[in-house]
């Protein structure tokens, strides 16, 4: 029996009539189902009813009008928070570090649930199909970097350009931090180029395998991409590392020049053989498993005439004869997500927790954000073998009949997950110096005839009415000269701090702070605010650094992972000397030092207190999972199988109308069983959902 769901709305379309003859000016129910499910996920009775009688052109225009609208629900807010302190978190204790990475995976789970819920409820399913298409095309696995902020921003980028211009997509993905890490371009330097990104850019992202490039072109592409990497201290930024970049001449596709990454995009997209590979992929996704070469050629010309804008191409694709040809019905195999989300939308299934869709998708081999390799997920009949056939049938049964429906009628617009508490927030006066956390990542201990000090990060800094993500410093005491200096690294300070020394994107800077007489004269650009911040940091430096006692750091001469616990005594002494010298020059800070955060998730350690108190991290996480359910409620739900049947448009035998609303092709004759299930909506629906024909569209 179809599981009980709550009624949000009841279809009012049951009385509409179906025109007897199909024509481009007046769509039948079958054609409406075809267009809706081919450009989206399944088709609910009310969606079908709403499109009957429209012309092909109007219906396609309506479907395309939902593009560029942005998601209906906001992406989790942490996507745009400060970059998490990946580069320092390892200096804390083991459970904090474990929780930090666990939290990133839980955020991926939250992001995935957000996306699946968006797919299930959006009024523009075509948008989500295109975002899926591109995230499969430019395959990129979270596994490689574990940074959910990058994953979220990549998803936003793909949805912004999903039906935009391909040149923007290609260029953006060549400069996407997650992609640069996933395909090793952060390791691609001129002395011995790493070919991974260069090769896949040509083979998988643009030209297609065997289409107009050679191994020499791959090598040239890799050289053009040398030095395109990430500056990842603080907020990661994609930069060109001039030293790693091979500025020499390269020859690619028969052209020679001192080309770089930007040239790679323009030269590749101008290559005469570029185009058909992408158009074919769209054809195989939306039209048929049978390639019509003349149509591919025509569409490629049309696409290029539109400067690679995707909208005219898609519109034309949806209006080709082949798209509407009945011979192409049922020629495309549903991917697991199309099957799961399509079922959810078609039958209006609400669920108590959208996260259940994630593990179901994983059982079926298609977890969003975690493609199996750079080739993306399987396509077409490669999805189907004896193992997946049985898995599909059992997960469908589970989804439709066993999963708990939502017990609320309206899903909250935003999913709460970090109500787990987090870092303590404090409000500080503008004159006080507020610091969330101090990290020591590298220290030099006192040794005969050597300097000592180390590298430290003040994380989540508040002062003078501003909040900054982090300020890193290098403290050094030279015993022979008896001189102590502090270098302030401004590159990780977000928004800018020490505004007298603006950050150069390519070369984030250091401000040297050497408290000898008249040193300020050598910093003519220093502002009053900079000076006040320096004063505050100098005055509290010994207290701040003493907090890192016992944390894990690298030590000079023992530069090996994972570092070891350090004693703060030595560098606190250096800080005391520095403080005394600095205060002589610019006076003492007269405000207080306040320890606390501006945002509970600034460190990315939501739930730390509970995790520390729990007997094990797993124990804590199990409870947290239970508390973090994400209800999912489609736009229209149906009370039961009978209500769903009642919403079917058209006239005629109910079982035939139901089959036509769900299946692209007639299923095999059921014989005696057919007689038994007519009149029993639940049995009928079950037989439709589990029929082999349900696997195609």
């Amino acid at each position: 029996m179809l599981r009980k769901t709550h009624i949000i709305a009841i279809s009012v379309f049951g009385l509409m009539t179906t025109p007897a003859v199909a024509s481009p000016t007046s769509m039948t129910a079958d054609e409406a189902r075809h267009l809706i499910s081919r450009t989206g996920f399944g088709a609910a009775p009310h969606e079908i009813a709403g499109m009957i009688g429209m012309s092909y052109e109007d219906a396609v225009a309506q479907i395309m009008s939902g593009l560029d609208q942005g998601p209906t629900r906001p992406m989790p807010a942490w996507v745009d928070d400060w970059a998490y302190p990946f580069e320092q978190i390892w200096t804390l204790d083991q459970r904090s570090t474990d929780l930090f990475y666990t939290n990133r995976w839980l955020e991926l789970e939250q992001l995935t649930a957000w996306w699946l819920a968006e797919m299930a409820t959006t009024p523009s399913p075509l948008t989500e199909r295109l975002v899926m298409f591109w995230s499969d095309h430019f395959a990129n696995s979270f596994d490689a970097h574990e940074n959910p902020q990058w994953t979220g921003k990549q998803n936003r980028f793909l949805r912004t350009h999903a039906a935009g211009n391909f040149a923007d997509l290609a260029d953006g993905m060549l400069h996407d931090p997650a992609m640069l890490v996933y395909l090793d371009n952060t390791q691609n330097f001129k002395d011995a180029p790493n070919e991974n990104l260069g090769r896949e850019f040509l083979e998988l992202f643009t030209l297609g395998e065997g289409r107009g490039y050679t191994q020499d072109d791959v090598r040239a592409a890799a050289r053009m991409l040398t030095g395109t990497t990430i500056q990842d201290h603080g907020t990661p930024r994609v930069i060109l590392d001039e030293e790693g970049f091979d500025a020499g001449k390269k020859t690619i596709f028969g052209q020679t020049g001192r080309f770089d990454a930007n040239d790679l995009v323009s030269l590749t997209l101008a290559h005469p053989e570029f185009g058909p590979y992408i158009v074919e992929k769209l054809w195989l996704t939306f039209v048929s498993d049978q390639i019509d070469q003349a149509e591919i050629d025509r569409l490629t010309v049309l696409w290029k005439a539109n400067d690679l804008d995707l909208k005219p191409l898609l519109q034309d694709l949806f209006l080709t004869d082949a798209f509407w040809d009945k011979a192409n019905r049922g020629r495309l195999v549903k991917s697991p997500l199309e099957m799961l989300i399509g079922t959810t939308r078609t039958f209006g299934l609400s669920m108590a927790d959208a996260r259940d869709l994630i593990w179901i998708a994983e059982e079926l081999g298609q977890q969003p954000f975690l493609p199996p390799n750079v080739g993306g997920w399987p396509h077409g009949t490669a999805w189907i073998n004896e193992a997946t056939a049985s898995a599909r049938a059992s997960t469908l049964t589970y989804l439709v009949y066993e999963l708990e429906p939502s017990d609320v009628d309206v899903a909250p617009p935003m999913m709460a997950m970090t109500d787990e508490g987090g870092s303590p927030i404090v409000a500080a006066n503008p004159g006080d110096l507020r610091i969330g956390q101090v990290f020591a990542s590298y220290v030099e201990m006192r040794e005969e005839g050597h300097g000592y000090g180390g590298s430290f990060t003040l994380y989540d800094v508040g002062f003078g009415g501003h909040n900054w993500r982090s300020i890193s410093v290098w403290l050094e005491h030279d015993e022979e000269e008896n001189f102590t200096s502090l270098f302030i690294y401004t590159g990780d300070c977000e928004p800018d701090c020490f505004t007298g020394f603006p950050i150069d994107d390519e070369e984030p800077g250091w401000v040297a702070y050497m408290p000898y007489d008249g040193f300020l004269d050598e910093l003519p650009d220093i502002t009053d605010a900079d000076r006040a911040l320096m004063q505050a940091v100098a005055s509290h430096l010994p207290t701040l650094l003493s907090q890192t006692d016992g944390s894990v750091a690298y030590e000079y001469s023992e530069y090996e992972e994972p570092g070891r616990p350090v004693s703060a005594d030595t560098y606190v002494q250096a800080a005391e000397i520095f403080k005394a010298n600095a205060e002589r020059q610019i006076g003492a800070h007269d405000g207080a030092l306040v320890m606390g955060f501006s945002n509970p998730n600034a460190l990315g350690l939501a739930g730390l207190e509970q995790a520390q108190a729990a007997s094990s991290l797993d124990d804590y996480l199990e409870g947290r999972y239970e508390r973090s359910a994400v209800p999912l409620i489609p736009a229209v739900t149906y009370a039961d199988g009978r209500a769903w049947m009642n919403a079917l448009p058209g006239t005629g035998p109910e079982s035939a109308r139901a089959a036509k609303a769900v299946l692209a092709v007639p299923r095999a004759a059921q014989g005696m069983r057919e007689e038994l299930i007519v009149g029993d909506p639940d049995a009928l629906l079950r037989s439709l959902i589990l029929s082999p024909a349900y696997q195609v569209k």
Partner: protein
Amino acid sequence: MSLITPNRRRFLSALGTGAATLPLITLPGFVQAAGPAKPSGNILILIELAGGNDGLNTVVPITDPRYRNLRPEIGIARNDALTLETDTSLHSAMRGVADLWEDGDVQIVEGVGYPNPNRSHFRSIEIWNAGLGANSIVRDGWISTAFAEGRAPQTEDASGIVLGGDMGPMVGNGRFSAMREEEIFLETLENLPGRQHAVRPEPLGSPLEQILATYDNAQITGEAISRKLEASRDRSWNFPETELGMQLRTAARLLDAGIDVPVLKVVQDGYDTHDAQPDEHAHLLKDLSEAITAFAKVMKQAGLWDQVTILTYSEFGRTARENASYGTDHGTAAPVFALGGEVQGGLSGARPSLDNLVDGDLSYTTDYRTLYHATLRDLWSIDAPEFAVSGAAPLRILG
């Protein structure tokens, strides 16, 4: 994310509990085996090393100064490798395989590749799967091709079962099945609609026809294996708890239960070591070696080791020269391991010269079709002229 959520646990436990309860349909010609069942003939275990395994750091030309020049940073140190022969060492993570080598159960075929090498993961594995060279666009796998036209070994239950990855060498028509964990497979079959055919339909034609055939075939496979699984004990063996370990455990379980199938395929992923290769590669080879060793042990206990041949293969080897990120890029030829009780141990083929690099890559010395041809001949006396390469040096897999 492999969090086992409460609902997922319920779903899996609903599948995993109790004996399989498939209706057993006696098909025409089905003969119930008397006594404990046993696979009838030779068994090929295919292990796909997905991503492109670095052959040079697996079977190491340890004394070759050119190797040192090509691999200054990531080369395997002499005292950190397992000596097989004077000039040949094995990566130190493969201790179990080295022990099998000492028993004479391992043959290493060197320099296996094909003319006009393709460096795309996806195209090159297609070429390996089809077995007909770089210019062929035949989609069928080499096992399917070899078993066509009545040449398939006469086995009761299936001609091949894929336990990991895609159908690969078994794409095409024939009695080829796929499953993951065997009990879950049997349980999930119950959700399939009743089948339409009494005997295995060929998965031909449109996608829908392929799905229809697959639905029926899954049930036919299930019926074939469930009786034998029920009649034998599921033993607790000590396999690595890795993807590969779990797949080889399933393989061992099927064979120990007497499932009569000549080919099983598993996959181990992760060999695309473009950067920071040394630790990652050691980790992969350790998993590979331990899983193979565990499997060999079970096969010996079951009295099947002499029927088994394990063959490892990868879409390509990697560049001879390391890159600046302590890794290697897509290359060409690489060694293939053959392991089994009747395998003729030792080195075979010829080592590609490090002086004779083409485009910076190794030149193959053994055409992979020769390997397929010899395997089919030695295991099942199949003469498959499709894979014969004229003028190729003879290769013998079984002793």
